[in-house]
C-alpha cells in the first residue's frame, strides 16, 4: 500500500514570497491533516479535512495560510506571503476516518530567509 506522498521535500524561499505544498493521502482515507512542526516542538494541527470539507482550522493563520482539498483526495497548503517564523516542517497525514490512527508523509522542510 502506498503511503502519504508529499512534495516538495525541501523548499527555501525569501520572506514575503509565496509557497505551496502538495499532499496525496492514502487511497480511501477520508480524513486529511496538515501539521506545522517547528524545530524542537511537537506537531501543531493547522487544518483538518473530512473528505473535501474543513473540520477544524482554528489554528490556521488565515491571513497568510490557505488550504484546499478539491474532490476530497489531494490537498494543497499555501503560504502567502511567508514570514521568517514560518520556517518549519509541514507534515501531511491521513486516516481512514476521524478516530483511527493517522499515517504521515515525510514532510516538507521550509526555510524562509
Amino acid at each position: 500500500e502506498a503511503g502519504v506522498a508529499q512534495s516538495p521535500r525541501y523548499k527555501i524561499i525569501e520572506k514575503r514570497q509565496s509557497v505551496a505544498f502538495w499532499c496525496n493521502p492514502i487511497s480511501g482515507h477520508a480524513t486529511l491533516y496538515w501539521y506545522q512542526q517547528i524545530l524542537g516542538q511537537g506537531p501543531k494541527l493547522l487544518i483538518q479535512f473530512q473528505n473535501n470539507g474543513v473540520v477544524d482550522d482554528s489554528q490556521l493563520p488565515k491571513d497568510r495560510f490557505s488550504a484546499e482539498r478539491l474532490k476530497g483526495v489531494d490537498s494543497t497548503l499555501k503560504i502567502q506571503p511567508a514570514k521568517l517564523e514560518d520556517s518549519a516542517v509541514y507534515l501531511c497525514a491521513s486516516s481512514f476516518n476521524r478516530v483511527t490512527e493517522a499515517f504521515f508523509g515525510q514532510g516538507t522542510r521550509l526555510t524562509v530567509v
Partner: protein
Amino acid sequence: SQELEQSPQSLIVQEGKNLTINCTSSKTLYGLYWYKQKYGEGLIFLMMLQKGGEEKSHEKITAKLDEKKQQSSLHITASQPSHAGIYLCGAEGAGGTSYGKLTFGQGTILTVHP
C-alpha cells in the same frame, strides 16, 4: 483544548538499558497514540490505546494507559541505537468540536549510546 505534557524532554541512555517516557493529559483521554519520528522525517505509528488499564507491546516497546485515562507511559526494554529518535504522544479529542482532532505533546528526544 487538550494539553499533553511529555517527560522527560530528552533522554540519553546506554545501549541495553531500560527507559520510560511519560505522557500526561489535562483531560480524559479518548484515544492515545504513540509515534516515533526520525529527525526531519514523518511520524511512524507505534501503538494506539483506548481503554483504561490497556497495555500493548510491539517487539521491545510497551505502552500503557492508566485506569483514569489521563496518563500513558512508553517503556523500552534493552534499548538499542535503532530506538533513537523523537517519541511523540498524540491524543484524540473526546467530543464536540474536538472530536477526531489529533493533538500532540512536545516530544521526547531519545539518544542511545552504543
